């Protein structure tokens, strides 16, 4: 329950309001107290005395009491609503901010849907508990504190009888607690699974449809729904059973009080009205016990949610600025790998002892078989992951000692898979540089050979992508990603297989523009189509996580090795007869 304490810590900034809320709660609680007394007064005094004026007094007392209660409880509820929403806001904000701080390795290992569930559903549950159950609990406790002396003072024997029952509640509650808690945790997990599966399958609908698996997917999804259903039912059963026991116990208790009270009245030790008022007060005692059951359920449910929210908040980002990290306003763009080894899983290294020195302004091509570690290598430059051994230096400084933001802002990274957002083309291109002017945006689109396509669209750059908009072909997406990267005017440009979906002609256009863009920057280009990279200053050949060769195209084709093989393989058909004939 220490997490609960931590959650309450979120109320601290609103201390004044919390105090006010507690005060209002007191007023609301207190306003409930006179009513049984008024009834008693009516029965024992007003009616026997047949006093019309007192009766009118009772009338106004009730109206006044409820008016007072109304105002207080309106203020209270408003305040509580506000506090609840505010906590939701604070928690969401913090969770989301924290999620953004977490490094890619966090996202690699989690389903998007599950992360979403934490930001949305868990926090909703927490809000529900705070404004619902938690408040009732406090009100109930306040009521107990106030009512207890009142009943004891009214008739202590009856009060003792009423209180004897209380321990039963505690016992019953203890008996059920563990099972309810376990169910709640399980239910949260199943809900997660449901959201995770749903997100994945909707996002991957093309594959589902390509293999005609719609029916299969419905069945699969329904098993997760079924799990939720079954658990939901067992939880309900448990809750109802607990509720039932508690009601039966209170009914018995009240019955006993009537019994004993009636005897007292008949023996003239008690007034009839007093007994009725007493039972009214006892209602205030047993009511909370009943509600405690509900609260308990909510609290268990929320407890699971709270734990998960804090678990996210407590996940330390692997990649963080060192306390004394320096901000580099302008990079020269020298990159150096010194004895770098790296594995996503430290026990399974992907890169081994990489040494590479890149001067500012160089164009470095990286080639190698699929899965050899090319993407991994460039990921280390932008510090998406930290090396296991050795160091990556930019401008002679270890990347771990430079402010992350200042590195990433000066690196233009086009990843292997192009991702666009559901906003306009303009906003997508300007994602890295929101203040770009129209001319700059058009220039960037031209560099990526995309301008003519966009200009032809009815809405031009204001065309929306995705929802309520167009979908781009994969090649168009890649080009948009290139435009996005060049717009930021980066010092280091990294293109990870960024033109793989382009035909040679389009690629040639893009290449021509890129040649200009790359001027004066340090560039890393990964490509499988070797025609793309023959002009590189140096070609780095990677195989199974090691640099096996470095040199210019001319040097590398002149000697046997991985590069020569790749080259031969790709251009074999160029050496065929037809071509020879064609060339004459």
């Amino acid at each position: 329950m220490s997490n609960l304490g931590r959650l309450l810590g979120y109320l601290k900034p609103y201390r004044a309001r919390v105090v006010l809320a507690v005060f209002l709660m007191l007023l609301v609680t207190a306003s409930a107290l006179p009513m049984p007394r008024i009834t008693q007064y009516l029965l024992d005094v007003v009616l026997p005395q047949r006093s019309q004026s007192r009766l009118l007094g009772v009338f106004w007392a009730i109206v006044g009491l409820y008016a007072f209660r109304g105002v207080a409880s309106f203020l209270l509820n408003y305040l509580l609503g506000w506090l609840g929403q505010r906590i939701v806001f604070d928690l969401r904000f913090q969770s989301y901010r924290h999620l953004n701080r977490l490094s890619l390795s966090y996202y690699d290992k989690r389903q998007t849907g599950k992360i979403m569930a934490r930001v949305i559903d868990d926090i909703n549950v927490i809000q529900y508990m705070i404004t619902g159950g938690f408040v009732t609990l406090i009100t109930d406790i306040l009521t107990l504190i106030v009512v207890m002396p009142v009943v004891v003072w009214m008739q202590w024997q009856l009060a003792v009888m009423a209180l004897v029952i209380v321990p039963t509640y505690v016992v019953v509650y203890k008996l059920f607690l563990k099972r309810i808690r376990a169910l709640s945790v399980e239910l949260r997990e199943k809900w997660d699974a449901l959201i995770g599966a749903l997100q994945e399958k909707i996002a991957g609908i093309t594959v589902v449809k390509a293999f005609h698996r719609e029916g299969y997917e419905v069945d699969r999804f329904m098993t997760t729904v079924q799990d939720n259903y079954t658990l939901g039912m067992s939880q309900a059963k448990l809750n109802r059973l607990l509720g039932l026991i508690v009601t039966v116990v209170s009914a018995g208790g009240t019955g006993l009080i009537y019994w004993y009270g009636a005897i007292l009245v008949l023996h003239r030790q008690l007034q009839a009205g007093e007994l009725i008022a007493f039972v009214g007060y006892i209602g205030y005692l047993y009511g909370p016990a009943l509600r405690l059951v509900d609260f308990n359920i909510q609290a268990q449910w929320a407890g699971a949610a709270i734990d998960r929210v804090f678990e996210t908040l407590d996940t330390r980002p692997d990649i963080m600025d060192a306390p004394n990290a320096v901000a580099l306003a302008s990079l020269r763009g020298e990159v150096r790998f010194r004895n770098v080894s790296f594995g996503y899983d430290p026990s399974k290294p992907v890169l081994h002892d990489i040494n590479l020195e890149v001067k500012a302004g160089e164009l470095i091509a990286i080639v190698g078989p699929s899965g050899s570690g090319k993407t991994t290598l460039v990921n280390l430059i932008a510090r998406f992951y930290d090396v296991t051994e050795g160091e990556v230096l930019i401008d002679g400084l270890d990347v771990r000692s430079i402010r992350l933001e200042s590195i990433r802002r000066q690196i233009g990274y086009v990843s292997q898979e192009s991702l666009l957002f559901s906003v306009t083309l303009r906003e997508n291109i300007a994602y890295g540089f929101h203040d770009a002017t129209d001319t700059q945006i058009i220039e960037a689109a031209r560099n990526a050979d995309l301008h003519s396509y966009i200009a032809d669209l009815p809405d031009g750059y204001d065309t929306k992508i995705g929802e309520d908009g167009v979908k781009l072909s994969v090649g168009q997406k890649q080009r948009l990603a290139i435009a996005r990267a060049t717009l930021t005017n980066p010092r280091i440009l990294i293109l990870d297989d960024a033109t793989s979906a382009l035909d040679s002609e389009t690629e040639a256009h893009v290449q021509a523009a890129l040649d200009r863009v790359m001027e004066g920057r340090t560039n890393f280009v990964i490509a499988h189509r070797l025609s793309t990279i023959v002009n590189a200053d140096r070609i780095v050949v990677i195989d199974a996580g090691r640099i096996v060769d470095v040199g210019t195209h001319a040097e590398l084709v002149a000697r046997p090795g991985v590069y020569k093989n790749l080259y031969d393989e790709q251009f074999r058909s160029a050496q065929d007869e037809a071509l020879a004939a064609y060339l004459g």
Partner: protein
Amino acid sequence: MRNLTRLFGEVKRYWGILLCILLLTAATAGLGLPGPLIIRYLVDNLVERKPFNIPLFFGLYVGVSIASSLVGAGLSMTVTYLGQRFKYDMRRKLYAHMQTLPLGFFEKNQTGKLMSNITNDVATLDQLISGGFVTLVSDLVTLTAVLIIVFRMNAYLAAWSLVVFPLYIANYLLHIGRIKKRADEIREERDVMLGDLQEKLAGAMVVKSYAKERFEVRQFVGQTRNLLELNVDQGMMGTRMWTLAEFIGSGLGIAVIMLIGGRQVMAGSLSPGSLIAFTSFITGYLYGPILRLIQINDQIARTNAALTRIFGTLDTEPNIKDRPGAVALPTITGAVEYDNVWFEYEPGQPVIKGVSLSVRAGQMVAFVGQSGSGKTTMINLLSRHYDVADGAITVDGHDLRDVQLASLRRQVGVVIQETVLFNTTIRENIRYGRLEASDTEVEEAARAANIAHVIEALPRGYETRIGEEGIKLSGGEKQRIAIARAILSDPRILVLDEATSALDSETETQIQTALERLMEGRTSFVIAHRLSTIVKADIIVVMEKGVIREAGSHQELLERGGIYAGLYLQQFEVALDQQRAERRT
């Protein structure tokens, strides 16, 4: 209101459970009614100090209480059951319906919003059904019963107790409009937030590459702040309505009864016990239900947006579906014919403009051409993810629109351009191509796709999970898994849409050999920009802006010296230069 009638239609199916609930409700109401009468008996005797049978009273009181809480528990279980059942069935219905909708639907709706449709909207309905509807029934029953009782007990007093009723209604009418409006706004804002959240979490890579974390957080804060304000405002209005309702009911109502009833007691026409019983009838069984009737209206208002969206989805007709009387496509040989095909995604912007192409069974067709020229679209039309606007596509002489969708897609195996793998084991990912495939078959497919050695090198081999609690694969590795998946599906027509773009040439060549074996005797369509991949094709189709510019074999096209020859020379320039140089020496 139309939404509600439809919702009733949906709930009607559970008439058995509903009947049960109705009975239990009547029982609860019935068991609740003796309470105040028993108390009246007690009070009247006590006020007069007349000895009475106390154990009998005790037995009655406790017995009735226990019975009513038993029935109450039964009722609440049944209601929960109804709610859960309803959620279950509704989610199934929604998800199953979504699955029948064509790709176009998913392209136009953000993933996050569709998710919210299935999760949140359905949950909202459940709240209405198990929260509101059921109490509605029970409240109506109680209300009628109590009205009869109180009027028979004392018609004069009963009439007075209804005096505050108009105030109630006025209060409700005053608030409900704005609450409803806010509910719609909240839902909309929430959806925007969910949609964005999903996108930005899935696109964490891009956010990080551009160091846009702070920007995204700011954006998100803006949305949640709007939500905060809307929610607080809605909460305020709700609270105001409720507080007023409580004041009118419990406060004013009781005061009036005590005043009028008190006068009657003094005049001797009413016993004190009756007054107490009367008050508890009125507060417990009359104002309560009326209060809840208001509540259900409030709930209905809040639910309306959810209902609209759920029915919106359910009403979206799949525009690609089997026409009545569609026949199952028999096992095909794979002759494909595009006959003057026109197609557009957006009205007025044709993407395919009058394409005709005739493919014989067993041929390999390659599409090349500029990015955005419509290659993928040609494939999408073949698997009938979209219908042609004009012209026709036939397979073995059957127009695609005349055959059952399932029988078509089962025979067309597509490796799509952007690889999608699911968060499960590698084995299950490959098996997705053919669910009944044996483990050996899965492994064979992996071998053919040249990925087996990578998988086998993993500590957990084929049981390695991808994504959550597992590993991430490189771009080329993912593509190879996707190819294995298609190989396993053993289709009559194989489509590879840039399925090897992320592979190095050596790996590609190795796969190529396996693929060639697979393509033997099947029709295949291959899209590739690396021309070395497709030189062996029977027909190479060069597309440009939605029309076919050239078609023929590699040799023919080279000889013609057109676009293809240009592309080819461009790509092989390096090699050719070198060759020329070699020749010169």
